[in-house]
């Protein structure tokens, strides 16, 4: 049987990625060819038993590589302690303070225009009683968390500023002695001096949504009366930046539409208003999926990533050339967490799912609980409990073990690097295997990119070492 590996070659070398050890191995051309032709040649193959490649393959096998798939059962390792994890270590709670919003963004998941069935705009607000109950629930379920994290979410949460003030006062009382991290995601149009002063004073991390230059931002982000919001957001952001001593308290989130010109979006990162701020971005979603990128966008992105690596190795003062690639590139180049070697046990699960409700538990206006803010609130299979009834552990377990609906996962080379979770399979009251499978090619693409980036990094390093030796006159 073919081992669970993914072979790759570049102009400079040959490699394979070993799924069950999460390692990338550099090999010579002979071994590579043998691995690629594994099925057609059979394990002993046409290659002479004593050939160099065959011997090397045997050696790799002795070292524990090139193994056949041996995952016996798909079960997430956290399943055993699920009850205790959710009883004691919910890291963050997001309070959906309102479902109202003063904007009608064209891609918004709440909007009538692009409602993909995940949720809808309504006039619902969270009451103080529900908010208090949510904080109490979080308090009861986070005893093992040294830091407490509370996020304000909407709709537009600043429509409920009075409630925010009351919640913060309550939390300061309840969690006194702990580091409390407050955060808010806002469209930035309602930020008055009073609100800004309050948020800054209480060290609330503020993320303002800003999609790019005026033409791009205003295309989607519009007031109810259809007027663009760019000018209001920029004005408030300037003021906010001025008020925040710690610039990291204030961040900008860009929703990037790949139909726009790459350079135009990318140049926006250099705008003075964004200087010193933490700017994050994500791709606009369509029908619960990330919108496909245009060829122009994709190739520009790839090229800028490549330039990033080149700069990283050639220049002393590294600064990513482009805001769009900066975050992802720095993550991979400097602190790569994807390729920590391990050995997959016989009972395990693909890399995608986190424990639903543990990282970013969302309490909606009515006190229903969801794994995070990204899931469909209208799919009942994603409702994992309520403030009154607590967690529905059976449902949580089903979402955590979403891989069990697609048993073929155990034979997929991208198993450990997979990013598909229950969110992608939500279909009304059940998790749907077909919906989940739709994500597979994208997930494998991401896994491939991670491996390719890692190899690029490795080859650049090797090249740089050679160049240095050459410079120093050592050969």
């Amino acid at each position, binding site marked *: 049987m073919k081992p669970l590996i993914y072979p790759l070659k570049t102009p400079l070398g040959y490699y394979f990625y070993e799924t069950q050890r999460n390692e990338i191995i550099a090999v010579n051309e002979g071994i590579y060819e043998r691995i690629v032709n594994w099925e057609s040649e059979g394990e002993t193959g046409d290659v002479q038993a004593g050939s160099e490649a065959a011997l090397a393959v045997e050696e790799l096998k002795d070292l524990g590589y090139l193994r056949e798939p041996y995952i016996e059962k798909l079960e997430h390792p956290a399943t055993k302690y699920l009850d205790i994890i959710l009883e004691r270590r919910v890291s963050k709670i997001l309070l959906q303070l309102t479902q109202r919003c003063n904007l009608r963004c064209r891609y918004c998941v709440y909007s009538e225009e692009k409602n993909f069935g995940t949720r809808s705009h309504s006039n619902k607000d969270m009451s103080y009683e529900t908010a208090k109950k949510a904080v109490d629930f979080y308090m009861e379920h986070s005893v*093992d968390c040294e830091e407490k994290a509370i996020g304000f979410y909407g709709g537009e949460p600043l429509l409920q500023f009075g409630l925010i003030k009351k919640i913060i006062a309550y939390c300061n009382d309840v969690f006194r002695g702990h580091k409390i991290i407050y955060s808010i995601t806002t469209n930035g149009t309602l930020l008055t001096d009073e609100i800004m002063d309050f948020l800054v004073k209480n060290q609330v991390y503020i993320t303002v949504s800003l999609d790019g230059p005026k033409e791009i931002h205003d295309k989607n982000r519009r007031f109810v009366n259809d007027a663009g919001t760019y000018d209001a957001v920029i004005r408030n952001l300037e003021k906010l930046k001025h008020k925040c001593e710690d610039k990291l308290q204030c961040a900008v989130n860009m929703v990037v539409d790949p139909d726009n010109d790459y350079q135009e979006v990318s140049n926006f990162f250099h705008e003075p208003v964004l200087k010193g701020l933490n700017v994050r971005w994500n791709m606009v979603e369509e029908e619960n999926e990330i919108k496909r990128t245009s060829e122009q966008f994709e190739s520009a992105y790839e090229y800028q990533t490549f330039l990033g690596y080149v700069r990283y190795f050639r220049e002393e003062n590294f600064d990513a050339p482009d805001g769009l690639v900066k975050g992802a590139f720095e993550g991979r180049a400097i602190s790569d*967490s994807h390729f920590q070697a391990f050995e997959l046990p016989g009972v395990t699960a693909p890399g995608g799912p986190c424990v639903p409700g543990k990282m970013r538990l969302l309490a909606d206006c009515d006190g229903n609980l969801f794994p995070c803010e990204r899931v469909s609130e209208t799919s009942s299979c994603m409702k994992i409990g309520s403030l009154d009834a607590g967690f529905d552990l059976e449902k949580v377990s089903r979402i955590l073990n979403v891989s069990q609906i697609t048993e073929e996962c155990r034979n997929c080379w991208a198993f450990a690097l997979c990013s598909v979770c229950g969110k992608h399979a939500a279909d009304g009251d059940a998790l749907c295997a077909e919906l989940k499978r739709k994500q597979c090619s994208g997930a494998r693409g991401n896994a491939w990119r991670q491996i390719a980036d890692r190899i690029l990094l490795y080859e650049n390093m090797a090249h740089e070492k050679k160049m240095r030796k050459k410079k120093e006159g050592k050969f």
Partner: protein
Amino acid sequence: MNKEKVCIVPFTKKEIPLLACMPDNYEISSVVSAGTELEGKEISFLTNRRELGFTASTDWRNGIRECGIIIITDIGMEKERHLGDLLYEIIGQALGERKKVICFAELEEARRREFEILAKQNGAIFTYACDPYGKREKTRFEKIRFQAPVIYLGEMTQECDGYEIALKLMKRFEQDNLRGALISEDKYNALYEHQYFMQFHDGNGLEHSVEEVKALVNGIEEVEKPDVIILKLPWPMTAFDHNIPYDYGVHAFIISQAVHADYCVYCGLSEMLSEDFISNINEHFRHKFGYPIDAFHISNQILDVVYEPQEKAETIYIPMGRVEGEARALREQTGEPVYQLLNENDFELFYQGLKKELFDFSYGRI
């Protein structure tokens, strides 16, 4: 014995060992938490263990009124900031009521002086117990032979119950009329006789801190003539993983070269509960430190797998009963010395084994 009533504030899980092993002349009258999250709850809730017999309150004014001594707990400067002025208000109030304040919290110099003056004015006592034992001006590098057996207590991650076990051991030795001495980085040692707060990471260089340990052990031996010395090692004994290296066990290694261990207790997380793990770590210890592990303590914690970089391993407390049962089963199946040392039966079993190993010789060279 007339016991003095003690109020502990602000209480966190770090102070649980004090509840279990308070000095004989003290009696805890209240445990006060800063936030309302613990209000009315049994303290055992903090570490998911069996009831300890103490309920938390937030009424610090009442706590002060009802006691003679206020213990201000060991909180760092950063944590102090999250308390606002609460800490200063509590100390001020206690000194105003002429109570004795033992302060383990780190205070700024000016604040500390302010409280010392206030105590003097009110005829109260303010003890700042935040400094380690006095260091010698010059480090003597010398060869010392120790007479009393030395027990190493090491941990796999921070807070694997090591301090509570050390205190329990000290108490148990006392019951058997054995004189113990404990050296560790825990400031609360100042509450007990024969216990020493030693700061291993004082910026003076590794070799100096190691020499200090050696000199301290020697000094204690010469003056106190203990029957046994417990050395709770600073920091975890090995790197936890790629992301959390701690100090790679460098301090533990160098100390192990300076002071020979006669017995080693290793405290770890529940993930250790497998024969493979036990035999691998034992092998690793033999190679790295030159001695095996004589007893394993399995804490009722599991590792919390998080995806952001961390400075220390984050854990989740699982019910004590689960770990006790699994530790017992592993011990019985494999014969490995695996215990849950917060469980009284396990502790006694472990203690008798340790005593036999260290003190009950049928023959020996003199």
